[in-house]
Protein backbone atom coordinates (compact mmCIF):
# COMPACT_ATOMS: atom_id res chain seq x y z
CA UNK A 1 0.00 0.00 0.00
CA UNK A 2 1.06 3.60 -0.51
CA UNK A 3 1.52 5.89 2.49
CA UNK A 4 2.13 9.61 2.25
CA UNK A 5 4.76 10.94 4.63
CA UNK A 6 4.33 14.63 5.48
CA UNK A 7 7.21 16.69 6.83
CA UNK A 8 6.34 19.84 8.74
CA UNK A 9 8.28 22.83 10.03
CA UNK A 10 12.05 22.65 9.80
CA UNK A 11 11.86 19.01 8.71
CA UNK A 12 10.46 20.03 5.31
CA UNK A 13 13.50 22.20 4.71
CA UNK A 14 15.85 19.44 5.86
CA UNK A 15 14.11 16.89 3.62
CA UNK A 16 13.98 19.25 0.66
CA UNK A 17 10.26 18.49 0.28
CA UNK A 18 7.12 18.65 2.36
CA UNK A 19 5.89 15.14 1.55
CA UNK A 20 6.68 11.92 -0.27
CA UNK A 21 4.88 8.68 -0.98
CA UNK A 22 6.35 5.38 0.14
CA UNK A 23 5.32 1.77 -0.22
CA UNK A 24 4.59 0.10 3.11
CA UNK A 25 3.22 -3.13 4.51
CA UNK A 26 0.48 -2.86 7.17
CA UNK A 27 2.77 -4.77 9.53
CA UNK A 28 5.59 -2.23 9.17
CA UNK A 29 6.03 -0.17 12.29
CA UNK A 30 5.68 3.60 12.28
CA UNK A 31 9.28 3.70 13.49
CA UNK A 32 10.52 1.73 10.50
CA UNK A 33 8.95 4.27 8.12
CA UNK A 34 10.44 7.17 10.07
CA UNK A 35 13.83 5.46 10.14
CA UNK A 36 13.75 4.82 6.39
CA UNK A 37 12.76 8.43 5.75
CA UNK A 38 15.65 9.64 7.91
CA UNK A 39 18.09 7.37 6.07
CA UNK A 40 16.90 8.72 2.72
CA UNK A 41 17.15 12.35 3.77
CA UNK A 42 20.23 11.94 5.98
CA UNK A 43 22.15 14.80 7.60
CA UNK A 44 20.10 17.48 9.30
CA UNK A 45 16.82 15.59 8.92
CA UNK A 46 18.23 12.52 10.64
CA UNK A 47 19.63 14.64 13.48
CA UNK A 48 16.26 16.35 13.96
CA UNK A 49 14.40 13.06 14.18
CA UNK A 50 16.83 10.84 16.09
CA UNK A 51 19.12 11.63 19.01
CA UNK A 52 22.80 10.67 19.27
CA UNK A 53 21.85 7.21 20.54
CA UNK A 54 19.61 6.53 17.58
CA UNK A 55 16.39 6.88 19.59
CA UNK A 56 13.52 8.99 18.21
CA UNK A 57 13.67 12.47 19.68
CA UNK A 58 11.09 13.11 22.39
CA UNK A 59 10.33 16.42 20.72
CA UNK A 60 9.14 14.82 17.49
CA UNK A 61 5.36 14.67 17.20
CA UNK A 62 4.19 11.88 14.90
CA UNK A 63 0.60 11.62 13.73
CA UNK A 64 -1.06 8.85 11.78
CA UNK A 65 -4.15 10.02 9.92
CA UNK A 66 -4.66 12.84 12.40
CA UNK A 67 -4.00 10.88 15.62
CA UNK A 68 -0.81 11.38 17.60
CA UNK A 69 1.27 8.21 17.80
CA UNK A 70 3.32 8.02 21.00
CA UNK A 71 4.59 4.45 20.71
CA UNK A 72 6.31 4.34 17.33
CA UNK A 73 6.73 0.56 17.55
CA UNK A 74 3.08 0.02 16.60
CA UNK A 75 2.26 -1.27 13.09
CA UNK A 76 1.08 1.37 10.65
CA UNK A 77 -2.05 -0.71 10.05
CA UNK A 78 -4.08 -1.45 6.94
CA UNK A 79 -6.02 1.73 6.32
CA UNK A 80 -3.41 4.37 7.04
CA UNK A 81 -3.18 7.06 4.38
CA UNK A 82 -0.61 9.45 5.80
CA UNK A 83 1.91 9.83 8.56
CA UNK A 84 2.98 13.33 9.56
CA UNK A 85 6.23 14.22 11.29
CA UNK A 86 6.04 17.50 13.17
CA UNK A 87 8.99 19.02 14.99
CA UNK A 88 8.00 21.71 17.50
CA UNK A 89 7.93 25.27 16.16
CA UNK A 90 7.99 28.48 18.17
CA UNK A 91 7.87 31.35 15.71
CA UNK A 92 5.78 34.18 17.02
Amino acid at each position, binding site marked *: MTVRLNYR*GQLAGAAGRSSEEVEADPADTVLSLVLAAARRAGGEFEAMVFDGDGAPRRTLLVASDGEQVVDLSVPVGEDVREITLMPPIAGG
Partner: protein
Amino acid sequence: MLSDTDRATYEWQLDVPGFGEAGQAKLRSSTALVSRIGGLGGPLAMSLAAAGFGKIVLVHRGDLREDDLNRQTLMARGWIGRSRVECAAETLRRFKPEIEVEAVDANFAEENAAGLVAGADIVFDCAPLFEERFLMNRECVRAAKPLIDCSMYAMEGQVIPILPGRTPCLACIYPEAPPHWRRRFPVIGAVSALVAQIGALEGIKQVAGFGEVAFGQLIAVDAATMRFDKIRLAPRRADCDICGDPAP
Protein backbone atom coordinates in the same frame (compact mmCIF):
# COMPACT_ATOMS: atom_id res chain seq x y z
CA MET B 1 -23.64 43.86 32.49
CA LEU B 2 -23.11 45.71 29.24
CA SER B 3 -23.04 49.48 28.98
CA ASP B 4 -24.85 51.39 26.23
CA THR B 5 -21.46 51.92 24.57
CA ASP B 6 -20.80 48.18 24.68
CA ARG B 7 -24.16 47.45 23.10
CA ALA B 8 -23.53 49.98 20.35
CA THR B 9 -19.95 48.85 19.72
CA TYR B 10 -20.64 45.13 19.69
CA GLU B 11 -24.07 45.21 18.09
CA TRP B 12 -22.99 43.10 15.11
CA GLN B 13 -21.24 40.39 17.09
CA LEU B 14 -24.01 40.10 19.68
CA ASP B 15 -25.94 38.45 16.85
CA VAL B 16 -23.40 35.63 16.48
CA PRO B 17 -25.30 32.43 17.38
CA GLY B 18 -24.35 31.20 20.84
CA PHE B 19 -22.46 34.38 21.74
CA GLY B 20 -24.95 37.11 22.62
CA GLU B 21 -24.92 39.49 25.58
CA ALA B 22 -23.79 36.75 27.97
CA GLY B 23 -20.67 36.06 25.90
CA GLN B 24 -19.94 39.75 25.50
CA ALA B 25 -20.27 40.33 29.24
CA LYS B 26 -17.81 37.51 29.93
CA LEU B 27 -15.25 39.05 27.58
CA ARG B 28 -15.83 42.48 29.14
CA SER B 29 -15.04 41.15 32.62
CA SER B 30 -11.99 39.12 31.54
CA THR B 31 -8.27 39.79 31.40
CA ALA B 32 -6.12 38.32 28.63
CA LEU B 33 -2.35 38.04 28.87
CA VAL B 34 -0.45 38.04 25.57
CA SER B 35 3.21 37.19 25.75
CA ARG B 36 5.28 38.73 22.96
CA ILE B 37 3.71 41.26 20.67
CA GLY B 38 5.41 40.25 17.45
CA GLY B 39 3.92 39.21 14.14
CA LEU B 40 1.65 36.75 15.93
CA GLY B 41 0.95 38.32 19.32
CA GLY B 42 0.26 41.77 17.84
CA PRO B 43 -2.61 40.85 15.52
CA LEU B 44 -3.87 38.44 18.17
CA ALA B 45 -4.03 41.22 20.78
CA MET B 46 -5.77 43.47 18.26
CA SER B 47 -8.47 40.86 17.72
CA LEU B 48 -8.94 40.45 21.47
CA ALA B 49 -9.40 44.21 21.71
CA ALA B 50 -11.84 44.16 18.79
CA ALA B 51 -13.83 41.38 20.45
CA GLY B 52 -14.06 43.38 23.67
CA PHE B 53 -11.87 41.86 26.36
CA GLY B 54 -11.99 44.17 29.38
CA LYS B 55 -8.27 44.15 30.00
CA ILE B 56 -5.30 43.08 27.90
CA VAL B 57 -1.82 42.70 29.35
CA LEU B 58 0.97 42.86 26.76
CA VAL B 59 4.34 41.33 27.65
CA HIS B 60 7.38 42.01 25.48
CA ARG B 61 10.85 43.41 26.02
CA GLY B 62 12.77 45.32 23.40
CA ASP B 63 12.54 48.17 20.94
CA LEU B 64 11.06 48.25 17.45
CA ARG B 65 13.47 47.50 14.61
CA GLU B 66 13.10 48.04 10.88
CA ASP B 67 13.06 44.30 10.19
CA ASP B 68 9.97 43.92 12.42
CA LEU B 69 7.85 45.83 9.93
CA ASN B 70 7.05 42.93 7.59
CA ARG B 71 4.74 41.44 10.22
CA GLN B 72 4.26 43.57 13.34
CA THR B 73 1.13 45.37 12.29
CA LEU B 74 0.52 47.30 15.53
CA MET B 75 3.70 49.27 14.83
CA ALA B 76 4.61 52.23 12.60
CA ARG B 77 7.81 53.08 10.75
CA GLY B 78 8.15 56.32 12.68
CA TRP B 79 8.29 54.34 15.93
CA ILE B 80 11.56 52.49 15.17
CA GLY B 81 13.70 52.56 18.30
CA ARG B 82 10.72 52.90 20.66
CA SER B 83 9.57 50.23 23.13
CA ARG B 84 7.57 47.74 21.09
CA VAL B 85 5.14 46.94 23.87
CA GLU B 86 4.43 50.64 24.48
CA CYS B 87 3.78 51.09 20.75
CA ALA B 88 1.43 48.12 20.73
CA ALA B 89 -0.40 49.47 23.78
CA GLU B 90 -0.72 52.89 22.13
CA THR B 91 -2.29 51.32 19.03
CA LEU B 92 -4.77 49.31 21.09
CA ARG B 93 -5.69 52.29 23.29
CA ARG B 94 -6.27 54.45 20.23
CA PHE B 95 -8.50 51.71 18.79
CA LYS B 96 -10.49 51.11 22.00
CA PRO B 97 -9.90 53.70 24.75
CA GLU B 98 -12.44 51.95 26.97
CA ILE B 99 -10.28 48.82 27.22
CA GLU B 100 -7.61 48.70 29.91
CA VAL B 101 -4.27 47.93 28.30
CA GLU B 102 -1.22 47.21 30.44
CA ALA B 103 2.21 47.21 28.81
CA VAL B 104 4.98 45.19 30.46
CA ASP B 105 8.37 45.95 28.91
CA ALA B 106 9.88 42.63 29.97
CA ASN B 107 9.78 39.10 28.72
CA PHE B 108 8.03 36.29 30.56
CA ALA B 109 10.59 35.01 33.10
CA GLU B 110 10.87 33.34 36.50
CA GLU B 111 10.70 36.71 38.30
CA ASN B 112 7.39 37.81 36.81
CA ALA B 113 5.73 34.57 35.67
CA ALA B 114 3.52 33.82 38.67
CA GLY B 115 2.31 37.40 39.07
CA LEU B 116 1.49 37.82 35.39
CA VAL B 117 -0.48 34.58 35.15
CA ALA B 118 -2.28 35.22 38.47
CA GLY B 119 -3.76 38.41 37.06
CA ALA B 120 -5.05 36.80 33.86
CA ASP B 121 -8.12 34.76 33.04
CA ILE B 122 -6.52 33.36 29.90
CA VAL B 123 -2.97 33.33 28.53
CA PHE B 124 -1.87 33.52 24.89
CA ASP B 125 1.63 32.26 24.23
CA CYS B 126 3.29 33.79 21.18
CA ALA B 127 6.95 33.62 22.29
CA PRO B 128 9.78 32.70 19.92
CA LEU B 129 11.75 30.72 22.49
CA PHE B 130 10.84 27.36 23.99
CA GLU B 131 12.20 28.37 27.39
CA GLU B 132 9.52 31.05 27.61
CA ARG B 133 6.84 28.72 26.28
CA PHE B 134 7.66 26.03 28.82
CA LEU B 135 7.70 28.56 31.66
CA MET B 136 4.33 29.93 30.62
CA ASN B 137 2.98 26.38 30.39
CA ARG B 138 4.25 25.58 33.88
CA GLU B 139 2.69 28.69 35.39
CA CYS B 140 -0.63 28.11 33.66
CA VAL B 141 -0.70 24.52 34.95
CA ARG B 142 0.12 25.73 38.49
CA ALA B 143 -2.55 28.41 38.36
CA ALA B 144 -5.05 26.24 36.41
CA LYS B 145 -5.45 28.92 33.74
CA PRO B 146 -6.30 28.14 30.10
CA LEU B 147 -3.37 28.59 27.75
CA ILE B 148 -3.58 29.05 24.00
CA ASP B 149 -0.17 28.15 22.59
CA CYS B 150 0.32 29.74 19.15
CA SER B 151 3.36 29.28 16.93
CA MET B 152 4.45 29.51 13.32
CA TYR B 153 7.31 28.73 11.01
CA ALA B 154 7.57 29.86 7.39
CA MET B 155 4.17 29.02 5.82
CA GLU B 156 2.96 26.86 8.71
CA GLY B 157 1.25 27.50 11.98
CA GLN B 158 0.11 25.59 15.03
CA VAL B 159 -2.36 26.40 17.79
CA ILE B 160 -2.67 24.18 20.86
CA PRO B 161 -5.44 25.06 23.33
CA ILE B 162 -4.47 23.77 26.77
CA LEU B 163 -6.78 23.36 29.75
CA PRO B 164 -4.69 22.28 32.76
CA GLY B 165 -5.91 19.08 34.37
CA ARG B 166 -7.98 18.14 31.35
CA THR B 167 -5.76 18.26 28.30
CA PRO B 168 -2.11 17.44 27.73
CA CYS B 169 0.09 20.40 28.61
CA LEU B 170 2.89 21.65 26.38
CA ALA B 171 5.42 19.53 28.28
CA CYS B 172 3.29 16.41 27.75
CA ILE B 173 3.53 17.03 24.00
CA TYR B 174 7.13 18.27 23.92
CA PRO B 175 8.99 17.03 27.04
CA GLU B 176 12.07 19.10 26.20
CA ALA B 177 13.18 21.95 24.00
CA PRO B 178 14.11 20.84 20.48
CA PRO B 179 17.84 21.30 19.95
CA HIS B 180 17.42 22.51 16.38
CA TRP B 181 15.11 25.46 16.97
CA ARG B 182 16.66 28.77 15.95
CA ARG B 183 15.52 32.14 17.27
CA ARG B 184 15.39 33.55 13.75
CA PHE B 185 12.59 31.93 11.78
CA PRO B 186 11.23 32.57 8.29
CA VAL B 187 7.99 34.54 8.38
CA ILE B 188 5.52 36.32 6.13
CA GLY B 189 3.29 38.60 8.18
CA ALA B 190 0.09 37.23 6.68
CA VAL B 191 0.94 33.75 7.99
CA SER B 192 1.63 34.89 11.55
CA ALA B 193 -1.56 36.98 11.40
CA LEU B 194 -3.51 33.94 10.17
CA VAL B 195 -2.26 31.85 13.09
CA ALA B 196 -3.02 34.78 15.42
CA GLN B 197 -6.66 34.80 14.36
CA ILE B 198 -7.04 31.07 15.00
CA GLY B 199 -5.50 31.51 18.46
CA ALA B 200 -7.64 34.56 19.22
CA LEU B 201 -10.81 32.72 18.22
CA GLU B 202 -9.98 29.72 20.41
CA GLY B 203 -9.50 32.09 23.35
CA ILE B 204 -12.62 34.13 22.62
CA LYS B 205 -14.71 30.93 22.46
CA GLN B 206 -13.18 29.64 25.71
CA VAL B 207 -13.85 32.84 27.65
CA ALA B 208 -17.25 33.64 26.15
CA GLY B 209 -18.37 30.03 26.47
CA PHE B 210 -19.60 29.20 23.00
CA GLY B 211 -18.55 27.05 20.07
CA GLU B 212 -16.06 24.23 20.49
CA VAL B 213 -12.51 24.89 21.57
CA ALA B 214 -10.08 22.31 20.14
CA PHE B 215 -8.89 21.16 23.54
CA GLY B 216 -6.70 18.06 23.36
CA GLN B 217 -5.95 18.79 19.73
CA LEU B 218 -3.27 20.55 17.77
CA ILE B 219 -4.63 22.81 15.04
CA ALA B 220 -2.17 22.84 12.15
CA VAL B 221 -2.36 25.13 9.14
CA ASP B 222 -0.19 24.99 6.06
CA ALA B 223 -0.66 28.27 4.23
CA ALA B 224 1.43 27.01 1.29
CA THR B 225 -1.44 24.66 0.36
CA MET B 226 -4.21 26.11 2.59
CA ARG B 227 -4.56 22.80 4.31
CA PHE B 228 -6.01 22.83 7.83
CA ASP B 229 -5.73 19.82 10.15
CA LYS B 230 -6.62 18.96 13.69
CA ILE B 231 -4.29 16.39 15.24
CA ARG B 232 -5.88 14.52 18.12
CA LEU B 233 -3.24 14.50 20.85
CA ALA B 234 -2.48 11.58 23.13
CA PRO B 235 -3.92 11.96 26.65
CA ARG B 236 -2.10 13.84 29.37
CA ARG B 237 1.06 11.96 30.40
CA ALA B 238 0.89 10.70 33.98
CA ASP B 239 4.69 11.06 34.19
CA CYS B 240 4.75 14.63 32.83
CA ASP B 241 7.15 16.78 34.88
CA ILE B 242 4.68 19.67 34.81
CA CYS B 243 1.14 18.31 34.93
CA GLY B 244 1.70 14.63 35.76
CA ASP B 245 0.39 12.83 38.80
CA PRO B 246 2.45 13.36 41.96
CA ALA B 247 4.80 10.50 42.85
CA PRO B 248 3.24 8.11 45.39
